[in-house]
C-alpha cells in the first residue's frame, strides 16, 4: 500500500466503479492487508473532493456511498451526444413512486385509495425493474398485500443521502387546505 497513497487508491477505485462505493467496500480494497480506518478514509475523501473542486467531475456522497459525477453544468453538452432522449415517466408512474417514497411502507391498495384510481401492474413492475422500489414485507390483513418501499438505488439515482432529504410536499399544500376548510366552516354556520 505504501507505494501508492491512499488518496490515489480511492480516486482510482471510485472512477472504476459504476455504483457508489461504501466505506465498507473501500476497506475491502485492501484485502488481507491492514485496511485504513473509517476516519482515515473520510479524511482522504475530503482531501480528494478538494482536489476536484474546479474540475468537470465532483465527488459526492449519496445513500450508497461515494461516487464521482459529472457536474450538472455539462448536461446540455452531453445531451448533444445521444439521439435517445432520457426516459420520461408518466404522471401515474411518478405519483405512484411519490406515494411509495413519502408514505413507505405502503400497499398498492393504499396508493389506490389516495389516488382514486387503480394502480397498473406495469407501473409497479417498471419501478421494480428500475431498481427504485422493492417489496419489504406483507401487511397482515386479508390477502396479505405486499408492502412497497424505496431502495438505496432510488436514493442514489436521485442524488440523496437519505429519505429525509426528500423535499417536503406537505408544506406546499398546507395553505390552500386551511382556506378550504375555513370556507366550509363559514358555509355551514
Amino acid at each position: 500500500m505504501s507505494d501508492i497513497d491512499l488518496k490515489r487508491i480511492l480516486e482510482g477505485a471510485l472512477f472504476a466503479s459504476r455504483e457508489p462505493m461504501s466505506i465498507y467496500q473501500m476497506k475491502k480494497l485492501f484485502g488481507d492487508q491492514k485496511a485504513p480506518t473509517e476516519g482515515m478514509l473520510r479524511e482522504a475523501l475530503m482531501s480528494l473532493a478538494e482536489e476536484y473542486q474546479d474540475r468537470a467531475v465532483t465527488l459526492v456522497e449519496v445513500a450508497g456511498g461515494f461516487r464521482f459525477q459529472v457536474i450538472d453544468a455539462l448536461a446540455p453538452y452531453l445531451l448533444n451526444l445521444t439521439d435517445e432522449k432520457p426516459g420520461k415517466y408518466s404522471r401515474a408512474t411518478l405519483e405512484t413512486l411519490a406515494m411509495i417514497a413519502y408514505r413507505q411502507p405502503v400497499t398498492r391498495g393504499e396508493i389506490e385509495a389516495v389516488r382514486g384510481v387503480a394502480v397498473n401492474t406495469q407501473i409497479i413492475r417498471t419501478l421494480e425493474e428500475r431498481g427504485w422500489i422493492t417489496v419489504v414485507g406483507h401487511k397482515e390483513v386479508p390477502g396479505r398485500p405486499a408492502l412497497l418501499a424505496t431502495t438505496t438505488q432510488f436514493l442514489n439515482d436521485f442524488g440523496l443521502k437519505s429519505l429525509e432529504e426528500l423535499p417536503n410536499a406537505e408544506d406546499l399544500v398546507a395553505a390552500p387546505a386551511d382556506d378550504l376548510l375555513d370556507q366550509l366552516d363559514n358555509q355551514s354556520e
Partner: protein
Amino acid sequence: MITHVQGELPLAVVEGSPLTQLPEDLYIPPDALEVILDAFEGPLDLLLYLIRRQNLDIVQINVAEITRQYMGYISLLEAMRFELAAEYLVMAAMLAEIKSRALLPRPVGADEDEEEDPRAELIRRLLEYEKVKMSAEILDELPRIDRDFRVAEAQKPEIDERTAPPVVDLSELVLAFGELLARARLSSAHQIEWEPLSTRQRMSEVLMKLRDRAELTLSDLFSADEGKAGVVVSFLAILELVREGLCALIQAAPGSQIYIRRASQDV
C-alpha cells in the same frame, strides 16, 4: 345551512361574481373523452383541476350539472375503458350524495359531531391527493441520474475477473419468452404475425454485412451451397428489410445489377 339551494345555482363564484355557465374552455365534449382520460389521472385529479385552475369553489359546486355531465359519458365509456369509468362514477355518486344532503333539512337536535359532513371527507381526499400530485412533481424535478447528471467513470485496468458471469440455461430463455408471449397475447388487442426465425436471423446477418460495407450486390447475399431453401430465406429477409424501411434496393437500369444498401448511410 346552505340557503341558496333552489333555482339558478351559481356554478362558481369568480372574484365575488357568480358564474352560471361553464367557461367554454372548461366544457368537455363527449368525443373528447379519451383526451380527459389521458389528461387526468382520475376523478380526483379532474375535480382538483376544476377547483384550482378555474377557481371553482368546492363548497358551491353545481353537483347536479357535474353529475349530468358524468352520466353523459357512461355510454361512451362502456365501449372503451370501463374500469376508469367506474372510478369516475363513484365520484359522481359521491357528489350527488353531497348535493342531496345539502337539500335535506337536518333533523332538529341531531348531534352535529355524530355525522360527518361528506364534503369534509371529499375535501380531505382532494387535499391528500393534491399532496401526492405535488410530491410527484417535486420528485420529477429532482436531479436524476442519466437525465440531469452522469456518473463519472474510467476504464478499469485488465483484471482477471474472479467472478464468472451468470450462467443462463437455454430452457430459462425459452421459458422467459413463453411467458412474455402469453402475457403480451392477453394484454394486447391486436396480434402481430412474425416472420419465421430463419428469416429474422437472415435479416440480422444482412444488416451486419451492411455495417461494414455501405453497399452490397444482391448476389453477395445468395450462396449456392445453401440450396434453394437458403435462397428463399435470403430473399424473404431482403423483402422484409425493405418493407420495414431498414434497407433500400437500387437498380440503375432494367436488367442491371441490383444493389442493396442501408436506408441511411451515416451510421
